[in-house]
């Protein structure tokens, strides 16, 4: 391998666009793992639903326990809507960052944070108010798995939205804003995964 060496103007400091591009690819690749996991969860749901082993997808009432009644999918769709609104709020923040409007950036980030908190709490309430326990058949197991995954997604969203808002507030995105772009990639996936979860739960 022939090699020439050329001294760069400043070899230890890369342009923010280069760093941003690299970080964006890394974030997308990590998302590939989460996407596969989420698709795996959907596979589990539809596989067990299709098999309905021993008629225990949704067990009928017995002497020892009541019948498993599936939850209404409207709650899951409502959560997907919350996620979509959060995505729009974050999009509003990103537009502010691109326009060098720090106030818009901070406001959009704060809204996104609050919406993610609403989503987290709402998902927690849905889990705690389900009319069945995780032991009551395959549907119940799958429901808690999907809801649990969505809860974890919202919890992570709260974390990064909090960081995003705080950094916006401190003016750290005044020079470059690739962090905000990457957070948007997460919001897009988080919204999509909520939609996928709601879609699955619409088939009982």
């Amino acid at each position: 391998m022939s090699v020439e060496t050329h001294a760069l103007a400043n070899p230890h400091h890369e342009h923010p666009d280069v760093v941003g591009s690299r970080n964006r690819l890394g974030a997308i690749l990590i998302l590939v793992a989460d996407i596969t996991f989420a698709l795996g969860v959907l596979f589990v749901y539809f596989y067990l639903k299709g098999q309905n082993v021993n008629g225990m997808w949704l067990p009928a009432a017995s002497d020892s326990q009541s019948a498993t009644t599936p939850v209404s999918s409207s709650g899951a769709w409502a959560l997907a809507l919350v996620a979509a609104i959060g995505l729009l709020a974050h999009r509003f923040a990103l537009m502010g960052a691109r326009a060098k409007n720090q106030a818009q950036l901070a406001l959009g980030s704060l809204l996104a944070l609050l919406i993610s908190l609403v989503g987290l709490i709402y998902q927690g309430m849905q889990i705690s108010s389900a009319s069945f326990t995780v032991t009551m058949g395959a549907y119940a197991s799958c429901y808690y798995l999907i809801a649990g995954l969505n809860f974890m997604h919202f919890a992570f969203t709260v974390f990064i939205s909090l960081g995003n808002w705080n950094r916006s507030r401190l003016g750290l995105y005044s020079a470059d804003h690739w962090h905000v772009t990457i957070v948007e990639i997460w919001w897009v996936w988080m919204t999509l995964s909520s939609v996928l979860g709601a879609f699955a739960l619409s088939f009982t």
Partner: protein
Amino acid sequence: MTTVLDHPTSAPGNSAMKRPLIERLNVFTAFGLGIISAIVFWYLARTFLPENTEGSFIKTRLDAVTIIAMLGWFFGFMTGIGALIGPFRWLLGKDLDHDESMFYAGKDQGIKRYFRYTTDHKVVGIQYLVITIIIFFVGGTLAMLIRMNLGHAGGGWLQPQTYNAIVGTHGIVMIVGTIIMITGPFGNFIMPIMIGARDMAFPRLNALSFWLIVAAIPPMLSSFFFGGISTGWSAYAPLASQAPPGMDGYIMFIVIFAISTMVAGANITTTVVKMRAKGMTWNRTPIFIYGVVASVALALPVFPLFFLSQVMSAMDRAVGSTFYDVRGGGSGWLYENLFWIMGHPEVYVILIPAVAALMEMAPVFTRRPLFSFNTAIMGIAGISGLSILVWAHHMYVTGWAPLLNGPFMLTTELISIPTGMLFLVLIGTLWRGRLWMTMPTASIYALLWNFMIGGITGIYLSDVPVDGALHGSMFVTAHFHYTLMGAGLTGALASLVFWFPKMTGRMFDRRLSWIAFWLVQIGFNVAFIGMFLVGLAGQPRRVDAYAALFNQGNSVTTMAAYSIMAGMLVLLYGVISSWTNGAIAPMNPWFAKTLDWTVPNPVPLENFEVLPVVTSDPYGYGKAQS
């Protein structure tokens, strides 16, 4: 290896109390906090979790307590090593400054940097090398216990449950060891230099992927104290659901290891895609890089399914979900599908970088260009693509989707075509080459021999009727040892000798490398051909006792296993003695042409003073101006 000067980071007179947090965290604080956290979580779980009563959400309290304690260990360990500092500094808007980044990179810390959350890819590479050796030592010791037990017909000195636990632990420990044995040490240390980068794309994630593996090991080893892993490495449900709490150690191990694999996969792929030196087009990128990227890129989408399978296994055990329990609408086939969708690509996650490493060495030791570079790329791509379409050949005899047996037989047999391409490249490179006979050169021949046997027996096993006869026998065990050990480990050992000078600054003892090579290769072939024979005769695997008619084959295999053990111990001695007292290595002892041999020993902190610009391919041996 020493890459930087050793001197204290704190000014004289500064007390330890004044040192910032990141300077106080290391492996000892990690273990300390991990143990304390595990005890606290264990106590809280025991105190507050309800008993196993009707209506309780806890199915098996002992499993729930065990899993919670292990989670406590995990969070405590990762906090104690400093993995959470970066995310929380980001959250607070207090990004690391230049000095802190240099501290994380291990600048001026001497040997201490190997015990910290150090981000320098060379440190991480050495850390991976050491942890791989430890993993192989543990797995190898367990293998010898297995062979000692199988030295006599009718059972040996181990109780059946203990024997099963040893087999299961040996299996999963060795699988993990072989997964990381190339991409861990050499993918981290060598790969960034080979592509002309200063470090990995995400240095902190690099450290994270390593320390996650360290965090995963204690739960795994603790399983011996809780009944062991009695299911074999595949941990099939519902068998795993009924296993003692040792199974929780397996689950936690896999969950943490899967996260490590995903993080490493994203990091390595991004590094190669985005950080190759100027002029290093894809046609000029060394074949080893292709092998490493194919391996981690393959792992990235499949390991989450393994992760998912274990999350559901944990839920079944601890809170009574019924994913795998047919009484509650679950299915054992579900587990098997999720497991093998990961399980078969995982074979190629292990094999591809090993073969690619030997393809990297072949031009060096034959002084010829790599034969048909494009064929090698097509072979790697073909194997990677087909490997995710073959998983159900592990399930022919389970009764799942018999109509799919034919298609899966076809896809499995098709994979021999791209595999044959890799053989062609290696043979073509060796053909009429002026061989420089070293241990890595001999390893190329060993790989061709071993992988041929492992591959052809794989074709037998992909055939539905033959698999019906051989499934669950020692023939299968011998087959996958021929691929994972005969091909994979052979490539890893050659890589160790080949890149040892760059990683340590010293030459690997030539005589010891040859002794180890022959002891391992002869012992290996005798041991596993013996295993093929008893497998063909009908000896089942995962059984601690066998009929007298298998005695001869098992005796031969056990004796040959001692030869493998001796070879590996010689190699270990070679590593230690060469590292401490070996001859000082020149910058490029093999006269190779890739960028990793253009940097001095020890490799500077940021690898290159000025970034290189590549102007030709890396295999221009025998060409003018190359």
